[in-house]
Structure formats: C-alpha cells, structure tokens
C-alpha cells in the first residue's frame, strides 16, 4: 500500500480490466468435486482458482484441543507453491496462519457447533492460483463445501472485498488494484440475518468512503450468495432428477 502512484489504475473512468467501479469479476462455483472428502467446492473468481474440502464432524485430535460443549471449526488456508508468479515457499507463514484463523472464526458463526461436542470440523482451503481476494474466495468456497458435507448451519457465508484506488471506492480489487491501491476491505456476510462475520481493513478510508464500500460489498455478497446456492442446487437437483437407468445397467 505504500507506493500510491506506481501505476495508473483508472483510465477514462474505467478500471484496468474494463470493469465498472461496482462490478464483480466473473465467479463460478462447483460443489462436490472431491470424492474422498465429506464435502467440497471448487471456485473460480477472476483469475483465482480455489479448492475447498471439508471433513467431519470427527473426533478431535489432539484431545487437549477438544471443546467439551461444542465442535471446533478448524480451517487451514494454504497457497500452492505455484499459485503466484514467484514460487511461494510452501508451508504456513504469518499471512496464511492469519487467514486460517479468520476463516475458522467466520465459519464458526454459522455452524451449529453445539451439536457435536468434542469434535472437529476440518476445512481445507487450497489456493491453486492467486490473483487478489483469495481470503474472500476461500471463505465463499469453504461455506459451499460445508453445506455439501451436510454440516448443520444457519446460513451460508458470502464474502467479498472492496477498496480504494486513485481516490475512488471500487468493488472486488484485482491484482494490480490490490498492490497499488490505497485500501482493501474484505467482508464476510451472512445474508439471512445481515450479520458481518469477517471485517478487515488494509489502508485508510474516510467514514463516507467506508460506508460506500460497505454498501457496495454487501450488495455484491448477496449476488455471490445466489451463485453459491446455484452451485449446490446444480449438484443435488440433478441427483434428484430421473437418471437414465438403462445406460447405467449397461455400464455395469
């Protein structure tokens, strides 16, 4: 955030990638992509590619980490070595430990953890390709994976960021906008109740700018929420449809 004017981010009133100020990048989500996990989701968000997998509820190990009255939601955010232009040194670092913590806490808000005392619900978020906004993408994918795993929860979590570039408040920062912009505000939103379960701010915004950014983000989260629901419906509605059994029998 230090270098403000290294790069021109807005030209003739449009952004570098031609988006409007309140326009999201393209998002697509697919639920249930991994057979071995209890639940999973794959998300593409602009150039981000993120895989999320859920295991559990299962017995918590190590046992001293068990909670006697509720389950622990244990998320692990990890970036693949090949997810960024310069190879990322594998393993947890300051940043990924932070994101793991905040994804865990955001998801814990919606999961009925009290139903599974002494257990753990493991959530793995693997970033295969990163291009700004992976924590939001990871949280969005993880909540679809949780629903796919049949975990009881009060709602899905939709997440999106907004920020400021060249003094203008914009939605869903791209890579260069994130690197050379002035502020970045990721938000996790629970659409049913309108609660916020993740809020961070990198950089500075005035009060008015913050209000504008929040309004924009919440509208975007509602849009993302619909994409999440669509992804789940797509998987399970086709299962509910009449399958062509003759073909199946021939294959067997």
């Amino acid at each position, binding site marked *: 955030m230090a270098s403000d004017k290294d790069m021109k981010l807005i030209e003739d009133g449009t952004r570098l990638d031609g988006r409007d100020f309140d326009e999201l990048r393209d998002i697509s989500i697919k639920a249930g992509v991994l057979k071995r996990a209890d639940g999973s989701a794959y998300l593409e968000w602009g150039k981000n590619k993120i895989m999320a997998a859920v295991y559990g509820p299962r*017995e918590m190990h190590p046992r001293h980490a068990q909670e006697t009255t509720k*389950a622990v939601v244990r998320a692990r955010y990890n970036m693949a070595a090949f997810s960024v232009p310069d190879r990322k040194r594998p393993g947890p670092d300051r940043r990924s430990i932070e994101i793991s913590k905040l994804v865990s806490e955001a998801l814990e808000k919606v999961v009925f953890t009290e139903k599974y005392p*002494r257990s753990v619900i493991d959530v793995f978020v693997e970033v295969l390709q990163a291009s700004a906004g992976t924590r939001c993408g990871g949280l969005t994918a993880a909540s679809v994976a949780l*629903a796919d795993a*049949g975990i*009881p929860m009060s709602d899905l979590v939709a997440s999106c960021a907004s920020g400021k570039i060249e003094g203008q408040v914009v939605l869903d920062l791209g890579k260069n906008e994130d690197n050379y912009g002035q502020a970045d505000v990721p938000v996790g939103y629970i659409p049913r109740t309108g609660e916020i379960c993740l809020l961070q701010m990198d950089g500075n915004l005035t009060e008015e700018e913050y209000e504008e950014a929040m309004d924009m983000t919440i509208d975007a989260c509602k849009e993302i929420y619909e994409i999440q629901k669509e992804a789940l419906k797509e998987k399970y509605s086709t299962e509910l449809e009449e*399958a062509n059994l003759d073909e199946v029998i021939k294959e067997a």
Partner: protein
Amino acid sequence: MSENETKRELLLPGDKIEEEGLKPGKGTFKKDGNIYAAKLGVKTVRKGYVNVAAQSGRYEPSEGDRVIGTVTDIDSSYWTVDVNAPSPAILHVNDVPWRVDYGDTASYINVGDALLVKITDVDEQNKMQITIDDEGLRKLDVGQIIEIPPSQVPRVIGRGGSMISMLKKYTGCKIFVGQNGRIWIDGELEGQSIAVKAIKMIEENAQALGLTEAIEGFLKEKTGKDFDE
C-alpha cells in the same frame, strides 16, 4: 423415509420453510417464529413435524440404531468401537453375552474385529453406549463390509425393506445394512460380487425413480434367476 416421492423440494441451509402449524423437526432450526433448514436436504413432513432429510453428511447416531463397528482399542473392562460417528462408542463388558474377567477382554474381542451392535444410549456429549448382547447382534467373523454414504441407507433398504430383500433373494447372500452406512455381505463369492455391484449402482443413482425395477432387471441378468414366473 421416502414418502413425498412425487414432490421433492431441495432446501439449502438458511432457507425458510413455509409451513403453517408445524413443529421444527430434524435438520431444521427455529428463529424469530420462522422455521429454517439447517442442512442441505429434502423437506419431509411427518406427525406434525417438518424435517429436512439430509442428502449428504456423516452418520448421526441415535438410540436403537443397529450399526456395524470395528474395534479400535481395548481396555481392561471395555472396548472402543468405531461406528463411523463423530466420536467413538464404548462397549462395556456388561454389554457382551459372555462373562469376561477383568483384564481378559482381548480373548473375546480384539482390535480390528467387526461387530454388529446396537446403540443403547447417546448422551449430550455425543458419547455412545453400545451393546452386542441382544437378538441378532454378534461378532462378524466372515464376509465383507462395504461402505456407502449414511444418507443413502434408506435407499438400499427400500420401502418396507423391498430393496434389501430383493438383493438377498437374488444373490443368495446374507446382507445386513447398518444405519451408519456400513453393509455386511456374506455368501457365495459370485453372489457377493453381484450384491456389491448392485449396491454401488443404488448408491450412484440413489434418487432415481424406478430404481427398484432397474436393480431387479440387473439382478435377473447377472444371476440368471427369475422369481416372477
């Protein structure tokens, strides 16, 4: 489990359920006077309760379920049994049909043994008590065990046990379907392999209409038997 055969409405976590005068049942929660789905599943109405029948997810133990477990640990007076639930179950020496002396547990049941057990109690800590001292319960010494998602157990059993009795009839195998999604199969090897294939088919097409007829066709073809005539 599968009334509402015609109307299957898919609900997602947080979806509001528009039902007048019904009580929130399994897989739902109540907030501010409204009922919402807590899980991804299909809405069913039964005895004044709305339930959401889960379409995925792990086994949730409940009292009275008959399940298949494997022994993971032995102590002087109890065995620890994995029944595919969030936490392991305890099989105490009082709940076996033999008189087991203190510290002599290993000579009756050992680590790795498969057991057909009944869940007698689930407490609020999700700790389970199980018994093997009841009719039909025993140690499983022969046969094989396969696993399916617990949400599809009702499909393998079929309405009123129609599917499972058909499988037994055609393959000539002994089959037991545990509520936790583990299925024990024993019999002639050929029959076993047909039964496994048929169960895999049910698993992959669990929601298809006319599944029972299709499976019967498959069984007729593979076994060369026909009970219709």
